């Protein structure tokens, strides 16, 4: 029994790391611009798909170069989303911006469908396919890549936003745009950067997970949903909360798939999410909101 649970935990942490990265992207964009970006899952899809496309065939790039190219492409897409879809709608209501990002995600999916068709693609694993024994449980080397990559990205984001001037400038915009502008921060550029960073993190998640779960033009939908759940579970606007929420969600899903029923695993995940919200209406680590009159 213990071995089984260890196995489910390892699977859960692998999946949860992807959710955590998508949730982190959600939190970064929400923090910088108050937008819930429903196209976040599409960044994961574009990252995975363009890495496959760049590395495929005889003339394909080596894996590291393809990954780098894919991250660059996705970053540009993220910035374009901010520049051409979010920025022109400044001052629109929350629901309107949500619909804009939904429109953007449909648009990006449509482009992916056009470029890559409906097939499933996979990247080769980064370092072989021999399972590693941990006690009586096994783990794929790629899972270690996902977990390690997740930790590195989260720590990197933490360092960037708390220690570097550029990261602090982005945070300043999220606190108060006018004040940030007054101390000489170019708010427009910072928003562009925030979207670029969120897209890059999404792309890296997509590349890391592509050898395990495969990728196709519509993988972004479910991942985006899970990322949103992770961000909400942790408390909107708290990046580390989103990461914790993502891991928790992955582990809950994996345990309930293994111990209860795989058909109901998503339902159990959402039921727990609802219960958490009923008792903590601002998520696990979110600050309680106060209505001003």
């Amino acid at each position, binding site marked *: 029994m213990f071995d089984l649970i260890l196995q489910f935990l390892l699977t859960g942490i692998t999946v949860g790391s992807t959710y955590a990265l998508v949730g982190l992207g959600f939190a970064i964009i929400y923090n910088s611009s108050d937008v819930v970006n429903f196209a976040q899952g599409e960044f994961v899809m574009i990252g995975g798909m363009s890495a496959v496309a760049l590395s495929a065939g005889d003339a394909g790039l080596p894996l590291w170069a393809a990954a780098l190219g894919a991250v660059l492409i996705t970053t540009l897409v993220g910035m374009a989303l901010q520049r051409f879809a979010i920025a022109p709608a400044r001052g629109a209501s929350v629901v309107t911006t949500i619909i804009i990002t939904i429109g953007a995600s449909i648009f990006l999916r449509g482009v992916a*469908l056009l470029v890559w068709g409906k097939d499933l693609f996979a990247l080769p694993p980064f370092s072989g396919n021999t399972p590693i024994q941990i006690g009586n449980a096994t783990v794929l080397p790629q899972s270690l890549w996902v977990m390690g990559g997740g930790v590195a990205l989260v720590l990197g984001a933490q360092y960037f936003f708390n220690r570097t001037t550029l990261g602090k400038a982005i945070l300043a915009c999220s606190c108060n745009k006018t004040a940030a502008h007054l101390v000489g921060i170019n708010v427009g550029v910072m928003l562009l950067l925030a979207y670029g960073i969120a897209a890059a993190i999404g792309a890296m998640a997509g590349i890391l997970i592509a050898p395990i779960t495969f990728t196709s033009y519509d993988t972004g939908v479910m991942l985006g949903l899970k990322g949103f*759940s992770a961000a909400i579970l942790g408390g909107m606007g708290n990046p580390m909360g989103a990461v914790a929420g993502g891991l928790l969600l992955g582990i809950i899903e994996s345990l309930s798939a293994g111990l209860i029923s795989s058909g109901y695993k*998503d339902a159990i995940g959402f039921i727990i999410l609802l219960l958490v919200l009923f008792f903590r*209406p601002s998520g696990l680590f979110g600050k309680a909101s106060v209505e001003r009159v």
Partner: protein
Amino acid sequence: MKRLSGLFLLAAAIVLLPILFPDNYFVTVVGVTAGLNAILAVSLNLLMGYAGQISLGHAAFFGLGAYSSAILTARYDWNPWPALLLGLAFTGVIAYVVARPILRLKGHYLAMATLGLGIIVHIFIVQLGWLTGGPDGLGGIPTLSLFGWAVDSDQRWYIVIGTLLVVVVWLALNIIDSRSGRALRALHGSEVAAEMMGINTAATKTGVFVLAALIAAVAGSVFAHQQAFVSPDSFSFFFSIELVTMVVLGGMASTYGAVLGALILTFLPELLVVFEDYEVMIFGGILMGMMIFLPQGLFVGLGDLLRKLRRQATPTPRKPAPQEPASHKPTPQKPAPQKEEKRHGVA
């Protein structure tokens, strides 16, 4: 009478369309779907547009109504009418039970909770195969009959659903202008302020949530009988998102806007089919473009535009025309297709 003039216009359009275009696919077949979508959008608009409570799980109640009718009539040979009533009672109870805890949430948390609710209902429909037929769906649902008049052709369904739409719109208009409608709009503005005015916000929110769910359940039941077949795909979270899009696209807090949004979102994919592979991309682009350039929704945005044009056409006695708010740009849909052409090149 002026208050309901839009309703008469809508009713006239519903009556005239099949007379002007008899046996037209877009009127009797797509029109029926559009009518059902419009009913759903109007009900969701009561909750979202007027009470300000976002719901990304409205398709769940549509599905509960549809499956209640489908299971009772097709599996247990009930008469459609008592099945409809029991389905309504069932949906109403579920909506009432979840309403209080869910509606305590606000903003994105409410969006997530309703989204989760919709997905949970969908998963149960898929998983309870012995009852619902699972992912394959459930067929053999008998058609409705009203006092011996069997609703068994596209034209008759058009009449039934058209009538239902007019009734639902009329109901929505009356609710909004009633005492409880004013309470809804008050709590949309500020819950604390509404409470200070003596409005029981929790009860008001629960009430409108249950009402919207009941209207959706009626639509679901009619949908099940009209299609004679239900499958979980029709009630997925994508459909919930589509409903929200209808409301926002048409213009929040406008019943006619919701109808307009539903019409556009039903007919647009039908028209875009000619673009084949480009369909999804163009649909997404149009959706984005409309929301960017008409953030208030089409109904409000186009109204403002018309007013502006009329003002330009007839010289006003007052010299300085009152300045329109900056958000109402005079360039509506034009730039959207341009952007698409740009993207074509990259793709």
